[in-house]
């Protein structure tokens, strides 16, 4: 195969195989932290114009690997090449100057600065000693238009939605002309539609000749987006395949050694017509308008919709975590006065698992046991905390949920995402609730733990507890729920059962393409 001239860059349409000089390449790269080997001799290259997905469970070494490529971590052994040239001692700054951009899992923006200040942060355009505001605004506007972000240049980043923040991160990469773009779990905070837009932008990048390295847990999107898929497991490179030549089932099998069907438990539901919880015409100012629905005993009720549709706020209102402007709530047919969460906990016998694990679920500096007992601490004594009873209860929870905690006294911030989520689950389940609201129960955790959580939710329902699952992952809603309520723009727009619980149907309601008259609405 004759070598092609390097510029202009290869368009993606003709496939990645034609490009001879990889933008980035790793040769025999290994990494160990202390005595723990995290990456074992990885050799992999990334072509210009190619979207290359890296998949694997938590702890497989994906993030460590791309951090080495981005110059953030030094490998224990092995070499990194940029356009065929060996890079000695890669640093973050050095790699950035070559156009290698890393977009973090947790977004890295200065929250108090404006959009335009963030886009040019660290690379401000200057005229003499002064900042050249005009040029930066001009270029900032262009870049925002390019990534399709409809935000004000002067808006503070902290006032933006998560999806918009992500676009700002990408705008930064665009403003600095990326040769390679590394994205670590970019869609974990996005809705389907926002993700779709992100994919378009990524494709534009690829068409312009950038090498895209894409880490994700979500197999459907990987399958859709990537040209090429590499599976890592336990720090080993298991396989690299063309995206067209591998099925999602096979990817999962390579990742964890089991198939996709096993993720979800069988749907077993003995129809019960009695409502445990009934909500009528509940409104939360600015978020929810006249929501009415019922929850039955032993049911798993899904709440689907785009981010911002008001699902979280609806349940925060029901639980007394947020003040409501109107509405009535019935528990087993009896009217319950709305007040605060401690009262809801007692009167409704209901708990809420927050979507934001680190911001609302866990005190990250506390150890797991203290976090576990924080909700409903009174069960270990009205005034004094009975430490022995607390420890015993926590020990049972660890066994039940198979939480892995190397050292009991260490803060939960040092546990893996999956184990952190299990601690929050243990915390809310410990109150023996009749009604459990799971808000995004599996966000940002690995497939193995996800499956465990799905089975746990099903087991809770089988015991006769009523479960609500709020999720932006359709696969999860479809695979798990007996009935699905769809919300759009602060209203409940549909209630689906049986065969109607399907991806297209839910999406059409969620995006407003289909409008039904739900029996509950008005």
């Amino acid at each position, binding site marked *: 195969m004759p070598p092609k001239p390097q510029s202009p860059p290869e368009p993606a349409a003709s496939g990645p195989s034609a490009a001879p000089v990889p933008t980035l390449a790793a040769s025999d790269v290994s990494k160990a932290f*202390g005595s723990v080997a*995290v990456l074992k001799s990885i050799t992999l290259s990334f072509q210009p114009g190619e979207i290359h997905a890296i998949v694997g469970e938590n702890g497989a070494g994906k993030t460590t690997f791309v951090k080495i490529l981005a110059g953030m971590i030094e490998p224990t052994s092995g070499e990194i090449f940029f356009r065929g040239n060996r890079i000695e001692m890669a640093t973050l700054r050095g790699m950035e100057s070559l156009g290698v951009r890393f977009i973090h899992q947790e977004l890295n923006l200065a929250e108090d600065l404006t959009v335009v200040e963030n886009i040019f942060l660290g690379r401000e355009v200057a005229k003499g000693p002064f900042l050249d505001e005009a040029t930066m605004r001009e270029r900032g506007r262009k870049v925002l238009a390019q990534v399709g972000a409809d935000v004000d240049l002067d808006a503070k980043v902290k006032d933006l939605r998560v999806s918009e923040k992500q676009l700002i991160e990408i705008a930064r990469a665009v403003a600095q002309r990326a040769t390679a773009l590394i994205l670590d779990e970019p869609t974990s905070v996005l809705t389907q539609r926002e993700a779709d837009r992100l994919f378009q932008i990524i494709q534009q990048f690829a068409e312009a000749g950038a090498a895209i390295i894409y880490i994700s847990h979500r197999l459907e999107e990987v399958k859709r987006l990537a040209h090429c898929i590499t599976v890592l497991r336990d720090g080993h490179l298991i396989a690299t395949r063309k995206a067209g030549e591998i099925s999602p089932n096979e990817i999962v099998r390579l990742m964890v050694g*089991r198939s996709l069907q096993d993720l979800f438990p069988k749907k077993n539901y003995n129809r019960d017509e009695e409502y445990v919880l009934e909500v009528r015409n509940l409104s939360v100012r600015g978020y929810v308008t006249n929501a009415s629905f019922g929850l039955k005993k032993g049911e798993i009720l899904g709440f689907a919709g785009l981010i911002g549709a008001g699902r979280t706020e609806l349940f925060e209102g029901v639980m007394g975590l947020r003040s409501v402007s109107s509405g009535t709530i019935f528990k087993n047919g009896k009217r319950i006065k709305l007040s605060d969460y*401690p009262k809801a906990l007692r009167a409704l016998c209901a708990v809420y698992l927050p979507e934001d694990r680190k911001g609302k679920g*866990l005190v990250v500096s506390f150890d797991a046991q203290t976090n576990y007992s924080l909700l409903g601490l009174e069960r270990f004594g009205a*005034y004094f*905390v009975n430490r022995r009873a607390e420890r015993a209860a926590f020990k049972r929870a660890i066994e039940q949920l198979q939480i892995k905690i190397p050292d009991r006294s260490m803060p939960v911030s040092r546990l893996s995402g999956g184990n952190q989520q299990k601690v929050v689950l243990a915390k809310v389940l410990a109150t023996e609730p009749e009604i459990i609201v799971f808000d995004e129960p599996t966000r940002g955790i690995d*497939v193995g733990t996800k499956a465990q959580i799905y089975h746990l939710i099903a087991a809770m329902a089988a015991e006769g507890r009523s479960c609500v699952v709020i999720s932006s992952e359709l696969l999860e809603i479809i695979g798990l729920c007996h009935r699905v309520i769809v919300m759009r723009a602060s209203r409940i727009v549909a209630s689906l059962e049986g065969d109607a619980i399907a991806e297209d149907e839910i999406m059409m309601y969620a995006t407003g393409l289909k409008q039904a008259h739900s029996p509950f609405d008005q």
Partner: protein
Amino acid sequence: MNSAQAVETKPDQRTETGSNWRTIAKWAQTLGPLIALLLLVVIGVLLNPNFLSWNNLSNVLTRSAFIGIISVGGTFVIVTGQIDLSVGAMAAFIASLMIIVMNQLAQSGWPLPTALIAGMIAGLVVGLLAGVVNGLLATKGRIDSFIVTLGTMGIFRSLVTFMANGGTLTLDSGVREAYRPVFYDSWLNVPIPVWVLAIVVVIGTIVLTKTRFGRYCRAVGSNAEVAHYSAIRVSHIRVIAFVVQGFCVALATLLYVPRLGSASSSTGVLWELEAITAVVVGGTALRGGSGRVWGSIVGALILTLIGNILNLTSIISVYLNGAVQGIIILGAALLQRSSRTR
């Protein structure tokens, strides 16, 4: 390949040396204040053999009792992630009020013991109320506690000046004579204020470490949002912390009034800073979330000892007392920082 199990624990990314360093830093942070206190005692003994005499020690302890008792309340406020700058002015205000009540009742013919007890009760009630006001403004009023107590500090301070008509309020000599024992008497050779301090420390420690309220204080101070989602009434906890602080200030003041004998606009100036310093030097994090009552007492003792040692010797001028205290604060802050950033 397909028999491989899901691996889900993240590899431990610490190196051995990192772990050792963390242990040392943690240890230094835990015992740091005690070591500093021991060091000061050793210096004291080297400089002046009279240092370890029971006379001098009980003097140091009695002097520490005032700031010590206030700093126990301060520990609760700071652990919940707030701050109370009003304690010095509040103490002056409570002292003024007690002096007025006691003088008035004694003059109107009440028996002295009754007048004294009524004055003390008035002081405690006002302390509790002042705590409620601070707490409600900070929670229901949604004003940062720094600003709230900056405001109430000004109000208390100016009320003292107003009540004293710009001058000094003095305890009548008869009343003062009857009140004297509360500060100056001893039981089992230990001064009364030291007994009270000991009791407050024991109760404070038990409340912070063994009770639900103490646990909630730490949770609220670490992350109020998480506390809210854990069905903890965050505002209640914060108000109660301020009330505990108000009670401690009143208790310290009623022990101290017989020694003061009078109150004026300059009474209690900068005491709030000494109390906060004692808490922080003792290892309680100023950002909230973790703290310990015994540490605050050690902090108070360190502050008093510095003054005491400077008084006993002439190597460093007594006028540099503040500078030495400042160095101690900065040292404590550096220790806290090293264990936080790893």
